[in-house]
């Protein structure tokens, strides 16, 4: 499912501006003490560009296969221990849907606040009792390029935060 990069077939679904702006509206609504933002699957930087319009804080831009020079190569699943936790860090991401759960779990190990897209099935497979689930959206018929998908969107914070 999804678009795939020609080089090695990794999943790549570009975040539409409208959806990215909606994610940022939600993050502004719920989190007012953000000191740093993590985008761990930045791809071509589409979501990073939207984040920069809404926040004036440092952004850590990572991707397993960066498509832009300002994004650092980093495997957010295998190399997660190399990334330090930071208080008041917010993660905003559109992860590979097949690995949504792993990305969400890792994001909430390295930050306390999260706004993320995910597969629709992830909405029901995540352990809701483990986190403070602030908002949940089921978005039907979202357009991603030539694709029309039902997707999920979570706004989450760690219970300890």
């Amino acid at each position, binding site marked *: 499912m999804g678009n795939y990069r020609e080089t090695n077939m990794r999943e790549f679904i570009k975040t539409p501006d409208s959806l990215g702006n909606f994610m940022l509206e939600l993050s502004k609504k719920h989190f007012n003490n953000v000191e740093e933002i993590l985008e761990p699957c930045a791809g071509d930087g589409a979501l990073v560009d939207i984040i920069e319009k809404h926040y004036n804080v440092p952004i850590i831009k990572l991707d397993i296969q960066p498509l832009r020079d300002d994004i650092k190569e980093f495997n957010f699943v295998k190399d997660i221990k190399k990334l330090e936790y930071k208080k008041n860090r917010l993660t905003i991401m559109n992860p590979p849907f097949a690995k949504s759960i792993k990305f969400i779990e890792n994001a909430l190990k390295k930050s306390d606040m999260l706004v993320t897209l995910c597969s629709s099935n992830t*909405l*029901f497979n995540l352990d809701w009792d483990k986190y403070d689930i602030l908002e949940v959206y*089921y978005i039907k018929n979202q357009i991603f390029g030539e694709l029309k998908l039902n997707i999920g969107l979570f706004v989450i914070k760690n219970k300890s935060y």
Partner: protein
Amino acid sequence: MGYDHRRNLDGNYFKIFKSTISNLSLDYYISRINFDNYFIYKLTGKQREVSKDDFLKFNYSGYIFFNKTIYDKKELQQSLEYLWSLGITIMYLDKPLPRLSDLKKIKVIDGKL
């Protein structure tokens, strides 16, 4: 065509499904499952509880078993009905659902944002 499973057959929950790469028969599973300890749901379509006899007919692609002492059948059904009321269907009921009917947190957006 055989049958395969995920998770332990005496665990909190597990699923059994048709598989083109397995040679295991349904008899293999029947002798290993304590049916008294579990209630059974079909995995796909409009999920619903099925009886042991329904499971043995195996008319659908797979079934999920929930331990009766751990999971509340009424709560699961209420969560499914809550989702259906929102026009949401789950493709595969792979694991226990969160207490969705209690939480009532899901907002639905239809169409392009």
